[in-house]
């Protein structure tokens, strides 16, 4: 495939917060349909990295391309609208709207889809995450696991081909992690979806990832297939990280 197979392209991306340089020159391509997992210790810059992809963080320098569109602050809304969705650590459902309204707001306002059609699509995805009976309640009445599954359904209703997951299970109680991972694993079977996932769930990474990227100190230190990572990592810091996180 040609240029078009690069869904996301980061070129020499730097990001500083004040004096603190969090990303120190990231070059990364994500292919269409690829399932990319980003791992790294806390404070490594992995969350900042994924947030640069949809410009929730604006890089201090460097370029971000989404489907060959050069990202900018001005074009962020347009590009995110047609290409990507995001699932957050803290769910970030809209508490003043019902579950169904959470799922239909953006399709109706941004894609000008009729209410009936948007609701029908929303119910399809709610069913897919197993929560269609929660359509008319407010999100704050639901458990963390349920809220995150709703958030995934909300991301799906925009029907974009890229979904970013920024530590989607880190804020969950342990017993709710698996229900969210199950939904994500099910999604990963779709060839068309491009998934970029920042996570500490190594079992998930091993099962789902086409490629794993290890980030530390604002740089990509190692990348490769799950087999490579879990059997034969090369970088010393990767080894140290994996030995700590896998018991």
């Amino acid at each position: 495939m040609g240029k078009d197979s690069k869904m996301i392209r980061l070129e020499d991306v730097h990001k500083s917060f004040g004096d603190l340089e969090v990303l120190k020159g990231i070059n990364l391509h994500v292919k269409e349909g690829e399932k990319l997992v980003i791992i790294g210790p806390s404070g490594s810059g992995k969350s900042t990295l994924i947030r640069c992809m949809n410009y929730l963080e604006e890089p201090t320098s460097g370029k971000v391309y989404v489907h060959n569109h050069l990202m900018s602050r001005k074009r962020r809304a347009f590009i995110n609208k047609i290409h990507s969705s995001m699932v957050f650590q803290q769910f970030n459902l809209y508490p003043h709207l019902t579950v169904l309204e959470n799922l239909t707001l953006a399709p109706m306002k941004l894609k000008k889809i009729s209410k009936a059609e948007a609701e029908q699509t929303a119910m399809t995805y709610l069913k897919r995450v197993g929560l269609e009976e929660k359509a008319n309640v407010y999100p704050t009445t639901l458990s963390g696991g349920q809220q995150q599954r709703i958030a995934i359904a909300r991301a799906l209703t925009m029907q974009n081909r890229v979904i970013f997951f920024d530590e989607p299970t880190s804020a969950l109680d342990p017993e709710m992690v698996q229900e969210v991972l199950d939904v994500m694993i099910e999604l990963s079977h779709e060839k068309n979806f491009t998934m970029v996932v920042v996570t500490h769930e190594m079992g998930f990474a091993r099962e789902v990832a086409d490629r794993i990227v290890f980030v530390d100190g604002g740089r990509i230190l190692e990348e490769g297939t799950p087999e490579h990572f879990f059997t034969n990592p090369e970088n010393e810091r990767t080894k140290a990280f994996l030995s700590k996180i896998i018991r």
Partner: protein
Amino acid sequence: MFDAEKWGLVWTHRQTFIDGTISTLLMALFGLALAMAIGIVVGLMATSHTKPLRAIARVYVEIIQNTPVMLQALFLFYAVTFAGVKGFSALICGIIALGIYHGAYISEVIRTGIQSVPKGQSEAAYSQGFGQIATMAYIVLPQTIKIILPPMVNQVVNLIKNTSCMFLAGGAVDLISRTNAFAVGEGTGSAAGQGYIIGGVIFFVICFPLSMLASRWEKKLKARDVATVTVRKKPDDVTDAELDMIISGKGGES
């Protein structure tokens, strides 16, 4: 105090109080409209990512909040009048002065309201493709209403009471000016106490229901959260009509 003759004087001059009330309400209404417009714009400026906008908002708010409204009104009235502007009535002066003064306070109410909404809310909206204005309109501002409503109504009540500052700046039209004119008037001065009581009663009658309305609205919004918990437990047993009853606080007891 219970002298029928003096209350009779008030009754005879009732038109004075009616005219004053109308002027005060007009001034308050248009002043509020102006204050809301200024408050929303300056409040949004104060939360913007652009430093100069934030600085302008800050300077405006600090100057207005740290000088007396009376002085601002006097300055406005005499500066404009001496500049030779024709048709600058006390009413218009009051509308502008109160709009500018309460605009500063309302902008602070809106700023704190916006800042109380977690950052993740606007990030979720941006990630879906909403722009900044749409994010404010659909996601952030609706969540601020519950928080800003009580202080906002306080501002409305204060604004109505602050029409009294027009007594010195232009004067003669608003309720305080008319009440005072009645109280010091040659034929009516003997009923000064009664006149002031009537003026006060009128202010109270206007302001008190507003305060009540605000606290009821606030309770209703809070009740909605409770109602959703009820629905969660028995999704099929609660009809929409019953839900409305719960929300409006009418149901539940019987």
